[in-house]
């Protein structure tokens, strides 16, 4: 445990404390709702990057978040289960479907995989949009209860119907998920995924069960996407599957932008990118309809000039600094 590592752990802890302290500091429900959406999108974008470890771009995370959202809302509303059971069941349902379709899906690569996942998302959305008895069809699902109050020893009862408290809840859950994802990222699993990405035939020949690990990757990623859906459902209180809503194509496309601007090859990339772009969208409110244009321009600039994203900035600056220093010394 060298000092550098200690420093970075300290930095992360500081950021976590900061993210908890920020909500009461901003102190209005609007900002709390923005923070909630940022936190949910961080989880979703991270799930996109989990699949990108295999060098595949999934345009279908929104479809799996839809499964999580509807399942967790329905089991709470129809079966009377608690929020926690709903959340977990939403994630499990999403993961289960991902596992069921995983074997044929993961055989495809590149453009084929992206188109396949995009079409799957649209199918799921259209099913939710038209399956009236279950999902409410185009009117959507309304009256999803917010999580039941939680009683903690020493603190007392916490009621999650306020924005602020829901933010704490979502933040805690997402931090736990990110921690698990980080452990996975540092484990043998992600080594195997990287080996498969670099050379799947070679990986196969050294005894890695390529398909098994690819399906596992897809399943894990979709589990977290499902959890993000559950968080979204109980936050919004209503779900609808219109083409321009939360589960439309634009959400998928935005997730890709968040990941690339943040930095696609770093664990912190999706987190940084989601925060940066969603805050940019908030602060650029005066631009109104032109805000997507701003985001698009930023994305193009990043792809062309800084393909490693914001997370790659320190390395880039260091190399520029080194060049400058060596130039001066010479």
């Amino acid at each position, binding site marked *: 445990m060298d000092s550098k590592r200690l420093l970075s752990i300290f930095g992360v802890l500081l950021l976590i404390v900061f993210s908890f302290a920020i909500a009461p500091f901003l102190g209005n429900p609007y900002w709390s709702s923005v923070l909630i959406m940022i936190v949910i999108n961080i989880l979703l974008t991270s799930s996109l990057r989990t699949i990108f470890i295999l060098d595949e771009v999934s345009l279908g995370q929104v479809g799996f978040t839809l499964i999580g959202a509807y399942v967790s809302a329905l089991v709470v509303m129809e079966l009377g289960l608690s929020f926690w059971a709903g959340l977990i069941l939403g994630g499990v349902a999403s993961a289960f479907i991902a596992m069921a379709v995983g074997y044929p899906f993961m055989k*495809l690569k590149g453009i084929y995989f*992206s188109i396949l996942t995009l079409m799957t998302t649209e199918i799921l959305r259209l099913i939710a949009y038209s399956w009236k008895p279950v999902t409410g069809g185009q009117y959507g699902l309304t009256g999803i209860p917010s999580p039941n109050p939680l009683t903690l020893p020493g603190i007392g009862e916490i009621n999650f119907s306020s924005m602020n408290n829901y933010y704490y809840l979502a933040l805690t859950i997402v931090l736990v998920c990110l921690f698990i994802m980080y452990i996975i990222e540092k484990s043998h699993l992600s080594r195997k995924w990287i080996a498969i990405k670099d050379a799947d035939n070679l990986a196969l020949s050294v005894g890695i069960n390529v398909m098994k690990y690819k399906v596992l990757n897809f399943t894990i990623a979709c589990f977290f996407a499902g959890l993000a859906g559950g968080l979204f459902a109980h936050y919004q209180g209503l779900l609808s599957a219109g083409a321009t809503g939360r589960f439309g194509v634009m959400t998928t*496309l935005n997730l890709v932008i968040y990941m690339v601007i943040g930095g696609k090859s770093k664990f912190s990339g999706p987190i940084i990118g989601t925060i940066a772009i969603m805050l940019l969208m908030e602060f650029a409110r005066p631009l*109104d309809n032109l805000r*997507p244009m701003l985001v*698009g321009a930023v994305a193009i600039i990043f*792809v062309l000039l800084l393909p490693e994203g914001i997370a790659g900035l320190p390395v880039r600056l260091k190399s520029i600094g080194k060049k400058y220093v060596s130039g001066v010394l010479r």
Partner: protein
Amino acid sequence: METSLSFVLQAIANGLAMGGLYILVALGLTLILSIMGILQLAHGEIYMIGAYLVYYLTSSLGISLYIAILISMGAMGLIGLVLERGIFRPCKGDFLSVITVAIALTLILRSYAVAQFGLFERTVPKLASGSLVFFGVAVPKDRFVAMLIAAAMSVALYLFLKMTRYGQAMFACAQNPEGARLRGINPDLISPMAMMIGCALAAAGGAIAGSIWMLTPTMGTLPLVKGLIIIVIGGMGSLSGAIVAGIFLGLMDGIIPVFFGPVVTSIAPLVIVVLILLVKPQGLFGHG
């Protein structure tokens, strides 16, 4: 009996007109995909901007519709040239970068259209007025004009690819980029050409769609999805496959809603595509 025949004939005419539009979009998509290796997710926005340009030319400058369509095709072709040179060529070869750039382009063009023209619907003059009578059933004439234009452009593209040196060079690039380079074909010359043709065809499709139906800033999503469906069914890079698949899809879109309603219409092609991708990813008409 009379009404159902009329419904079916109307549905077939509608379907063929839609099929023609989808083909125009899909031909561009498949050309760009096979020659540049780029999944152009912003192709639907090019279609939309092309349509709005026609709207502007006809309503504000009073130019006649057909000349406006030609001008719009030329302008979008030039934009395609700029896009290829400016943003697509630098990130060629990196799949995620290309997708990101295309998504960014979608955001930019769509928000431009929303800001410039607003969210409410606009109309362009009709391609042709009146209707033709078949078996005692009236079918609007503009559907036929749309089909004719789509067919003429598909044939023109086919002849260009088969008969000219540049067309043959494009084929070569699509089949084997390395080999084409060895034979002295410059990919930096062929790629912009593919992009230009693709964007011009999309603009034509958008203009025709605008004159049959309505203009909205989100009108590009549907043809993009249909275009992707067509290139998967027809096989990526296969022009004849795209045409057959386009007619098939158009007919499905025209006829299914009459019998089964809109939901089946939108889900059925997607399910077919997913099945094709899973069973035979090279498409029904693709090679290898």
